[in-house]
């Protein structure tokens, strides 16, 4: 009886330790597996997102092509001629104006210089904004 009791008393601490360790290892393995699965799930999501980005890029490229086709000078020109009735301006003449004539014309329309005398400046009945102020 003493021996059995001794065995019983001797095995009890070992069994609980074994169970704890086994559980720890099991939990670790399960955690590892979970992390691995979660990693795969994330990879799948990355792939999915990458796929969506790529699809958007493809749509963007297709639209870019269509946009550039719409901007084609040949298309715009033919549309303007056929649909809108555009014609070349045939009676164009180039008139070259001398610089001196331009200066003279500009001088003729220059506004007269404002009076900025002392009396004008202090006149309380005239509220004018002075650019120089």
């Amino acid at each position: 009886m003493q021996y059995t009791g001794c065995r019983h008393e001797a095995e009890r601490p070992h069994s609980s330790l074994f169970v704890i360790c086994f559980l720890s290892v099991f939990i670790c393995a399960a955690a590892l597996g979970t992390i691995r699965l979660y990693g795969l799930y994330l990879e799948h999501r990355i792939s999915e997102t990458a796929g969506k980005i790529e699809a958007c890029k493809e749509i963007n490229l297709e639209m870019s092509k269509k946009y550039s086709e719409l901007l084609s000078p040949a298309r715009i020109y033919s549309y303007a001629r056929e649909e809108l009735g555009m014609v070349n301006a045939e009676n164009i003449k180039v008139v070259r104006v001398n610089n001196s004539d331009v200066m003279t014309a500009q001088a003729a329309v220059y506004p007269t210089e404002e009076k900025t005398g002392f009396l004008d400046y202090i006149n309380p009945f005239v509220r004018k904004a002075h650019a120089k102020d």
Partner: protein
Amino acid sequence: MPRIKKDEPECIRRSKSVWRAVYFVLAVLAAGTAWIQLNPDIRVVRQSQKQYWASVTVSASRGEIRDRNDIPLAVSVPATSFFIDPKYWDPKNAGLLAKPFEESTAKKFRKNLTGRFYWVARNIPKEKADTLFKNEIPGLYRISERIRVYPHGELASHVLGFCDIDEYGQAGIELAWNHILYSPPRTRFLTRDSKGKTLDIIGGKSGVPKNTSGTIKLTLDSRIQQIMEWRLIEGAKSANASWGAGVCVDPYTGEILALASYPSLDPNNRKNLADQDAVRNNVVGRVFEPGSVFKPITMSIALETAAANRNSHYTCKGTMKLADKTMSDVNKKAHGTQDLTHVLMNSCNIGMSLMSMGVPRHQAYGMLRQFGFGEKTEVELAGEEAGLIKSPEEWLGTVPANIFIGQGIAVTPLQAVMAIASIANGGSLLKPYIVAEVTDTDGKVIHRGGRRVRYQVMSPATAGFMRAAMKKVVSDGGGKMAFSPKVSIAGKTGTAQIATAGEYSKGHYVASFVGFWPAEKPRYVMMISIGEPKGSRYYGGQIAAPIFRSIAEDIMQISPPEDGALRTKAN
């Protein structure tokens, strides 16, 4: 028999040590497993990938090429390619390939194949590919790729060039700037299930693939380009010419605004690329004797070297004996005594030959080199030729006189137009450029084209005199066909014979016209060359000058007037 009782503490101690050993082994195993899971051996990974993954190299998206107004001229769009994995392919299904593709394709896959990968068809437009196979065929797989597309077809095809099936530049800007536009191909991983069915996972485990291509903005104006191409093709066809070239530049910056070559081609159709004449860019890749369009340049050399001045006069009797040969004018017409302006207006060969006698040959050669003849302009286009110019030691007998009338020297249209641009801008020879801006993937500007003066080849006074003389050529001289009441054009006609086997043969000519407008303050310099016209009309003044005029008038319709020049519409 009495049992010997063990000491209790010793029993517990031994048991603990054994269990500790077991736990230690388990821990080591767990750590090893975790380590292997997290950092698998590369050989194992490769082996598993061989079984479950198929890697295919596919082209990445190539950078865009745009014109100066940001209109895309070359873009890459998605396309679908088909391939076969012989491991899962049943040759009995080969008949199904005959209808969507070709009989030859089906025949190729009727036999048993070795290996794991065979292309069936590449870069089929997505819409078409979607309609090809409604039901999946085991062993036939599709993959998304990129295909280079030129949305405007023939427009600027000689500038843009083209790419091969892997989007690698083969000509033009596509080749010269391939290092910017090209994004290296990436590996695409395809997963397989037990039946061999693939799942296209983009970029594999690397997420979104990085595109490293840049974007190029050209100095071309697609509107001017379109006008030039239409007019050049129209003119070349009416003259039944073998080839044609046209180039328009800004004389103050050196920007190339339009560059056209005939015959043209649509690079979207790869069968067109087999035609070598159409692929050739005549503006930079063809050299020919310029003929009389060269006279303004040689005359300015004579003025700059003081071999001639504004009061110089030359007497033309129609023909002239020089060394062992006879120089003559067209139809041996005698022009009488002429000043420099009239020599140019009449395009007098005798006058130019007499002028050439006063110019030291080494000096003339040096100045021609300064004008950029005999060397590449270094424009950013592939396939440029340098032209031909004889060394001064070879300038014997009639050679100087010939060079002064534009024979015995070979130039490209781009070289000629840049030399004339120096007359238009007051004497500065500029480096032409066609790339305005290069941006990287992040939109950062990494290159910007700009004005670069190569030489001051003549004084502003000489340039001004030549501009006035060239204006008279159009208003009163041989270039009357280029005269326009809408815009003041200055220019020079040229008709050069083409030498074949060392002899000038009749019936082979290059008709050209080079000029600029508005003559008083030039904004555009342009050259039009029509090669080997067939028929009775072959003079530059007859076939190239009208093309020049029509282009100038069309451009004027779309470009706003300069300060001081008011456009008005008469009644």
